[in-house]
């Protein structure tokens, strides 16, 4: 894949929605091959952060992709550098999985042009990789929630961008498919040097896969750094209002367990 090892950097990002500040001075940095998990309670501003990085919202501050300010990039150029999968994608019920995934090749197709054979091959290969090949001819209206989520991921991967922004890529997936999707993203970023930024609610999964973590609450950065420094009992208690126990697994990665306030009798 192209331009592997692209760094994304966000400096002092501020976003206001309906004149209400939703993000205030958030910053992050992730280099090629790195996986950054953005965590925080509901409404913290995680999705807003990804959307602003993608240039979908008006924002103040800077987003640098490979050292270049994202707002100076032409739309197609930016689309070749960054791919984005939204939390609640719109999926027209009568498009087929293949047609939908193929749309991810848009940044490589001239404005009124059509896809090349290469575009179709890339699409086929990604569907294969995501275990979706048998569904290629199925319409989106006839997929399960988890299948839809994988199809959205496929569309983003087909874009072959070195930076991948995924908003809650695993929420609708069963245990096996969560693991499968995260393993796939993990392999891609290690093999191709992709920079991965995901928002994710499952702190256990985040702890297992991410290298670094950004914890935001109320639109502000409250902690960032290596996973072990962010996934701590006091921080989680303060910002999620949750009682958890954080232990270490044999490889040194944090394990997060919920504890019932009143232990079962």
């Amino acid at each position: 894949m192209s331009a592997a090892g692209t760094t994304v950097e966000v400096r002092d990002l501020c976003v206001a929605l309906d004149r209400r500040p939703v993000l205030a001075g958030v910053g992050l940095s992730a280099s090629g091959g790195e996986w950054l998990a953005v965590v925080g309670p509901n409404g913290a501003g995680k999705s807003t952060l990804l959307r602003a990085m993608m240039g979908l919202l008006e924002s103040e501050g800077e987003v640098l992709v490979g050292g270049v300010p994202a707002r100076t990039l032409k739309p197609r150029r930016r689309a070749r550098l960054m791919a984005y999968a939204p939390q609640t994608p719109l999926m027209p019920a009568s498009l087929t999985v293949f047609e939908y995934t193929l749309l991810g090749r848009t940044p490589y197709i001239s404005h009124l042009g059509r896809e090349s054979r290469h575009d179709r091959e890339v699409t086929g290969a990604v569907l294969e990789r995501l275990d979706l090949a048998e569904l290629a001819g199925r319409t989106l209206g006839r997929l399960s929630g988890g299948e839809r989520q994988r199809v959205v991921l496929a569309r983003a991967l087909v874009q072959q961008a070195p930076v991948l922004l995924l908003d809650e890529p695993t929420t609708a997936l069963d245990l096996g498919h969560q693991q499968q999707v995260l393993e796939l993203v993990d392999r891609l970023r290690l093999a191709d040097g992709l920079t991965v930024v995901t928002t994710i609610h499952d702190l256990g999964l985040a702890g297992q896969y991410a290298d670094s973590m950004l914890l935001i609450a109320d639109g502000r950065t409250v902690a960032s750094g290596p996973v072990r420094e962010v996934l701590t009992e006091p921080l989680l208690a303060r910002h999620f209002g949750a009682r958890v126990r954080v232990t270490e697994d044999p490889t040194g990665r944090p394990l997060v367990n919920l504890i019932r306030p009143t232990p079962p009798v």
Partner: protein
Amino acid sequence: MALAVALAVLLVCVLAGLMTGAAGIPAKGVVLELADLLPFVSVDSGLSPVEQGLLYQLRMPRVVLAAIVGGLLALAGAGYQGVFRNPLADPYLLGAAAGAGFTATLVIVLVQADGLVPLAAFAGAVGGVMLAYGLGNTAGRGGGTATLVLAGVAVASFLSALQAFVQQIRVEQLQRIYAWILGGIGGDWSQVWLIAPYALVSIGVMLAHGRLLDVLSVGDDEATSLGVSAARVRLVILCAASLATASAVAVSGLIGFVGIVVPHIARRLAGGSYRVVLPLSLIGGAAFLVLADMVARTVLAPAELPIGVVTAFIGAPFFVGVLRATRAVEP
């Protein structure tokens, strides 16, 4: 595949349309006459000069005009549905019908020059849409599609009120006004030439944007993240579709049903990609209206039914039939 079938259907409809009519022209003569038009083919049709005149000056322009109007309306409908991401959007959604109705009534009542009605209707349709678009964009910041539709509703009811007002000034013209509103394919070559340039431009633009309409269908955010400006695609399609609607309205009045039903059937039969839905709607709409016009001028011959009545009358049952048939196929 679906396109080939649709083209064959259109061909059959056109042939049928040319063969039927008040004056009986031998069917075989019509076929031979058409064969004669093909390059490198020369046959004697055996039609008399009068019959030839009838065929070339009356039936043929009428069939051609019906095909163009039907194709334009269905294509415009498909375009509007793509822009608004709503299968129930129709070509008249943004005030094209009300605008055309108003200006056509104005001309019928005040100027009483029939030759001016198409131009007036065209201008009215374009004006209505522009008014709705302007209002929708200034009223709602960001110009969401919902605001646009609401602006269309406001503009349409305002212009309809104006139209009703003007029409009440000259009640004796009521029948002509209604005849225009209910739609009819007039049919001489001058009308064909009048709208052909606009038809060609709008058809070309719309068909070229099939893939981008697919991109638009996955959402503005995702279109943007794929490097496509959703607002620009939307504007281009709206312009082209409105041009198509205005051209159709100019020569045929208000013909309902085609713009919603035909794209819907196309989607049912050939899937949701606009790259197929657009050309299929164009061809299907043409075939449908040629057929409807044939019915309109033969059922009560020598009197004619308004074509808008016919489209609803044969369109509705047909539509229900398609809905039932395709649902039966789905698991």
